[in-house]
């Protein structure tokens, strides 16, 4: 009973933190576009706060740069349980065009922190991001919350 109640609460209020670990900024503005009245992310109870300490979902955009190798793990450890990591775009998945000889990226991001969902695209359309977050986010958070620590 309590779990079911917690599930409902967890599903209906999701706080999101956006972390750009070295991308081109394209995925970031597509997430900002999600806030616009046309997509209206907040009607689903999802708030983009950019504060890792109150985040349920960490959105990672960008291949991991030199500075982020340790800082990303620090941010991940600061987010409270249950938490879900969503990788947006190709950079966190494979390093995109940057992952070539001579660059200083350390993709994929799953080498550093566990990733729960992936959205490929360079950048993905806002509708694709929205669909993926809604399909994965609420249930994953509820399921993670039910796990015993």
């Amino acid at each position: 009973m309590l779990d079911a109640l917690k599930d409902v609460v967890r599903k209906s209020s999701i706080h999101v933190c956006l972390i750009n670990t070295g991308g081109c900024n394209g995925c970031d503005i597509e997430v900002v576009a999600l806030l616009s009245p046309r997509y209206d992310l907040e009607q689903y109870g999802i708030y983009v706060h950019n504060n890792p300490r109150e985040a349920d979902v960490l959105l990672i955009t960008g291949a991991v740069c030199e500075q982020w190798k340790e800082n990303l793990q620090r941010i991940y450890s600061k987010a409270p349980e249950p938490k879900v990591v969503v990788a947006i775009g190709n950079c966190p998945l494979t390093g995109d065009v940057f992952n070539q000889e001579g660059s200083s990226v350390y993709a994929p991001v799953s080498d550093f922190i566990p990733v729960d969902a992936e959205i490929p695209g360079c950048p993905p359309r806002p509708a694709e991001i929205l669909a993926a977050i809604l399909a994965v986010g609420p249930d994953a958070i509820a399921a993670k919350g039910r796990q015993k620590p």
Partner: protein
Amino acid sequence: MPMSSVIWYLYEFARKSWAESFAIAKTNPEIVETPERFRDFPQVFPEYCIACGACTAACPAPNAIKLIRSEDNAEEEGQTYPVINNRGCIRCGFCAEVCPTDPKTITCGENHLIREDFTILPTERMFVIDDYLCIRCKKCLKACQVEGAITEEDNKIIIDQSKCIACGNCLDSCPVKGAIKGIYIAHVQEQKDIIKIIVNSLEESIEDKREDISHLSDDEVYKFDLNIDVMVDRARSILSDDDIILDIFQKVTDRLKLRIVTWDDEKCNRCQLCVNECPSGAITYNKEEDVVERDTEKCLRCSICYQTCPFGVAGYYIARFLLDPPSLDDGVIHITVKASQLPIGAD
């Protein structure tokens, strides 16, 4: 007027449509509609593929596309076709643009409709026909998948570089070794360094056998083998691409003809004929010790001293090479040294 606004809110909530939209959040369907030109991830039709590799060469993302080959079965051979990795694809549509098949193997938005004469392909290799060696068998014309890439003009076979997709089919079909050359146009400096390493080590290995060579008679042939492991290791430290390294090894061993000049001081009668003839000043006469000296660093191996000397002090030999089998792992260079057939004695 707080009261009236409260009433207004209550009234608004009482409306059914408002309450519905409040309870069931949904977004308008129009946001998922995409325009015609929208480039989604490319679609692949494996049945049209000719396995030319144009798409993989054109793709700017390193992990996006690769050619795979399905397994052979009893009826037919396996089909080769490209596979798009969505996690690496940047949806630029360039692969659809360069695909030379008709109908296209890869489609992406409307990019595959771009006119063919504008397709530009960034290639790593350039294929050229050596007119001197070409026997005009026209096998390459039949093997070529792209119309108009290889043409015949004035009884010459020519590759049109603007249409060539660098698939390499012509090279495989050519019966004459060296008539069609596939040149790697990237990493030119690295290729030069590797060629230097190979030529220098070949020369050193022959230098070690100098004693044996100087006793060769005119129609004798001296053979020995050279292991290439050390050279390959050094080449790999410069360039990581094994294909290019093997290509260089083969080209060097096929085309290189090393000339070797030996010098036998005991036969010398100090006539000093060679000193004036030498074009690079490598041969000098030392008055104090009464010897003719040859500086190997300056020597051009032009063979003039060999042809001038009446006593046979200078020996002139030619070395040729063969890499067999043509592989980097278990290949061995066979070296053949034999005396030159040039006429001797100043005329």
